[in-house]
């Protein structure tokens, strides 16, 4: 049994493997014996407690990896049961409790030094049978004094565990020309419930946290399992600062609790000079999908709304550049307004289709809104050639910078001279001659009609649009616009004639000029572009005007995902959810009331 002596000064050493199942007896040369047993072995949160009894007095310590650990506390405990077993008087205190701090992963031994015999007994503590957090179930074994010590140690340990931790993954800022700014910080933080986060600038100034939101971060929660404050939604954290933070400034995130302030992490701020790049980075933060509505509403709705409004005011003031090829009709019935963004691949086909339509040639003016400076040059060359080839006069207007769907269409409308405005996407193609007249007479015949939309077909001939309706997505908590019957054969469309619908797509819709002006045109509240069409239909409805779907007029819609050009790591979907929140903030009751309407 004797193998190794950690204390060479001692004459004897005995090693014992299992002292929990039954009492162990060690016999000595003189024929005497020592009996002992371990009753409880406890290990949790870096605290080890061992309780049991020895037939004669001993002093205890722990040994971990050949290293002796001095116990925090060792006590003798009165054990009448042991007195009865050993047949000793109850005044003899055979019980002991030994409490020490040690790392949990180590293999441990209890060392019992029998002073009278110059002997150390080394007892292996089998951690597989160690009780976790069950010290309280052995009050008789440990005794009141040792238990108190154990509790206080454990309490201190838990506090040490719940010390604050944080890291930031994103620090993105933007400032517009009016000086409006926004800085978004995002990462994770483990805090106790009574703690708050503060942000400090490089110069030590306190930067007020304008808004803060917590959200689940499964990865962090797994890493620090079970230590996240219960009142927060999770340890993911996103913070917005309205104060301007410049590029390269290093911010410090600090946790404050009961007057104690602890610096948690630092991050260098990345300032984006382009609004769309800023938007892309902000909406690339991987907030969980089902948390987005809450986070966006609380954090982004106001500040981004303010930035977007400021931006659109600035853009609207920029003087546009205009041009014309050929001679458009002097007083056109219809102005066809088409924004161009990303490329001009479909321009030739679109103009070929227009060139086949008699109404188009005599009574319509075509206005292209070049909403992308990178295509202006190629557009001007191409439009010049196409005019020579097809003799379709074209007006064009270039707004200097990308204004988005609404801004570009509003710019087109500002130069249009027609009594009717036909807003059309660059991937929509005239199919039936007489289509423009049919749509216009729908408005002429019904003074209560405000907007008329048409049937749109995919290139394979199936329905792409037959009116829109609103659908609530419970998991995301947003109202979305959906296209009923999309993908179906046109004959499956139940609409048999022009009829009111909740909304029609902005890919192709006709309005009277005065109605368009009366509602203030396309709303520029939506960033880059989403929901402007339903917004316009709802604005028209607020004026008492209906939105009509005309199933007898068909156009082809190639519906390329124009915005996919901006690159997509989920940011575009998140931005759509943000725009949906803007949309439902304005129209919540209208959206829910028209939900059941057939579309």
């Amino acid at each position, binding site marked *: 049994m004797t193998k190794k002596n950690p204390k060479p000064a001692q004459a004897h050493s005995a090693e014992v493997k299992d002292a929990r199942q039954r009492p162990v007896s060690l016999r000595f040369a003189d024929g005497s014996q020592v009996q002992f047993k371990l009753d409880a072995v406890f290990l949790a949160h870096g605290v080890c407690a061992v309780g049991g009894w020895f037939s004669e007095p001993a002093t205890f310590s722990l040994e971990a990896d050949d290293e002796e650990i001095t116990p925090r506390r060792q006590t003798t405990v009165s054990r009448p049961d042991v007195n009865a077993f050993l047949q000793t008087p109850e005044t003899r205190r055979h019980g002991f409790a030994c409490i020490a701090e040690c790392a949990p992963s180590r293999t441990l031994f209890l060392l019992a030094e029998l002073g009278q015999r110059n002997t150390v007994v080394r007892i292996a503590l089998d951690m597989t049978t160690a009780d976790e957090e069950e010290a309280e179930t052995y009050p008789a074994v440990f005794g009141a004094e040792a238990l108190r010590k154990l509790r206080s140690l454990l309490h201190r340990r838990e506090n040490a565990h719940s010390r604050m931790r944080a890291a930031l993954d994103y620090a993105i800022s933007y400032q517009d020309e009016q000086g409006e700014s926004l800085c978004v910080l995002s990462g994770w933080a483990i805090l106790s419930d009574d703690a708050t986060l503060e942000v400090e600038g490089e110069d030590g100034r306190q930067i007020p946290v304008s808004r803060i939101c917590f959200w689940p971060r499964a990865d962090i929660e797994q890493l620090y399992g079970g230590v996240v404050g219960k009142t927060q939604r999770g340890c993911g954290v996103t913070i917005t600062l309205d104060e301007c933070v410049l590029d390269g400034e290093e911010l410090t995130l600090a946790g404050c609790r009961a007057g104690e302030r602890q610096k948690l992490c630092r991050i260098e701020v990345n300032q984006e000079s382009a609004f769309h790049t800023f938007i892309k980075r902000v909406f690339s933060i991987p907030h969980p999908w089902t948390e987005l509505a809450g986070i966006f509403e609380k954090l982004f709705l106001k500040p981004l709304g303010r930035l977007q409004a400021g931006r659109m005011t600035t853009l609207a003031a920029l003087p546009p550049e205009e041009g014309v090829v050929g001679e458009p009709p002097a007083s056109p019935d219809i102005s066809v307004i088409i924004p161009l963004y990303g490329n001009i*691949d*479909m321009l*030739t*086909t679109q103009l*070929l*289709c227009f*060139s*086949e339509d008699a109404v188009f040639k005599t009574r319509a003016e075509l206005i292209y809104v070049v909403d992308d400076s990178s295509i202006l040059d190629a557009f001007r060359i191409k439009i010049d*050639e196409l005019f*020579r*080839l*097809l*003799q379709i006069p074209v007006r064009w207007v270039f707004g200097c910078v990308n204004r988005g769907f609404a801004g570009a269409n509003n710019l087109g409308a500002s130069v249009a001279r027609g009594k009717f405005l036909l807003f059309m996407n660059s*991937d929509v*193609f005239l199919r039936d001659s007489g289509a423009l007249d049919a749509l216009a007479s729908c408005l002429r015949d019904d003074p209560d009609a405000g907007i008329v939309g048409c049937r749109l077909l995919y*290139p*394979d001939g199936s329905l792409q649009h037959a009116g829109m309706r609103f659908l609530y997505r419970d998991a995301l908590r947003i109202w979305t616009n959906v296209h009923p019957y999309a993908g179906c054969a046109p004959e499956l469309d139940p609409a048999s004639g022009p009829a009111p619908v909740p909304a029609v797509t902005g890919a192709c819709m006709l309005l009277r000029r005065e109605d368009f002006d009366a509602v203030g045109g396309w709303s520029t509240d939506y960033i880059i572009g989403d929901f402007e069409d339903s917004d316009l239909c709802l604005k028209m409805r607020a004026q008492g005007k209906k939105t009509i779907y005309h199933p007898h007029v068909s156009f*082809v819609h*190639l*519906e*390329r995902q124009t915005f996919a050009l901006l690159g997509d790591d989920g940011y575009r979907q998140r931005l759509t959810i943000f725009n949906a929140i803007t949309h439902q903030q304005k129209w919540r009751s209208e959206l829910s009331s028209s939900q059941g309407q057939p579309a």
Partner: protein
Amino acid sequence: MSSRPRILVLAHGHPDFSLGGGEIAAYSLFQQYARHPGVEEAFFLARIDRGRTATGGISLHADHEYLWEQQRGNDFFMEGKNLYATLTTFASFIRAVRPDIVHLHHAVHLGYEIIEVLKRCNPRIRLYFTLHEYIPICHNQGQMIKTDGRLCHVSDLDACVRCFPQKSAAAFWQRKRRFQHYFSLIDGFIAPSEFLRQRYIAWGIAPERIRTLENGLRPLPALPPRPMKDSRGRCRFAYFGQITPFKGLPLLLQAISFLPGKLQKRLVLEVHGANLEKQPEDFRTEFETRAAPLEEQGVLRVIGPYEPDRIAERMAGVDWVVVPSIWWENSPVTIQEAFAFGRPVLASNLGGMAEKVRHGVDGLLVAPGNPQAWADALAETCGNNQLWDQLHGGIRKPFSVEESAAAHLQLMGVAHD
């Protein structure tokens, strides 16, 4: 037409520079129109690319023959490289030539914009368009063969995207939409075979707007049957044309290997073919592997390419002409030539071949791509003098260029005298 028309023939190449079937057909029609009493004047304008950049310049090549310098444009949308030149140089050429009729062949690399420009110059110009292949229907060089080598029976957006995954369905929709626009300006379409005509009708050209008119065959001298010097009978077969994966030659060699040894000793196949060296390596290997043992036995004789005017010499020594193509073959000139020289034809029962050969009358039609069917056909014909005489007697004189030009002029409403 009250007075004699001026006719301009427009082609993608001039036979002086490029000897393709389309170029030859266009040029011989131009020559016929020029000498026809019902035509006031005929002109020929052919695209050429001499690597002088896309100047778009037009120059006089010979009397009434012009060359138009145009580089390759956009093959997908059939857009000319230099649209500005089409709008200016070409338009002014048209105003100078003042054609009443323009006969287009193969607008490849010229750009379909020329159709719009022609009508813009003079809306009264009548436009006729001979469709030599399937370019408007099929982006795979107008072959209606899938990019994996299988025959394509119907083109639709999904099928086209499967062949060209880098293109979108939207792009193919636009391609067809643009072609339909330009084709709406054409007064009449001409298909060299009924098979090709039906393909275009299925694609969307109204049946009354497209007529089948065979390409005419140039005048060829008559040729007596091969004099027989031994008792082996009518046992000499010959293949004429390019050696490409679509022509079915390995299949024919496989068929010969199926034949009994006695028949193999009798049969001779001559291959008068070119361009094997330009083919993909796996095809070359397949051809050469199958050819080597047959050449050794003396069954197969690979003779190589020939000049078109030497065809009579090559035909003189054979009895049967084989056309084992696994592709459609819209209007194979080999079949016309074989008939002109009085040689019965064994051809795949497919596309234009099935139209030109009358089974059991002037030749045999064989199940396409089936080596056993070809072995059976060879076994049936090899040395069968009686069948040869019967089919030889059934051969009709092929449609000549004069007849073809007359038929074209009639279709265009040009008076005979």
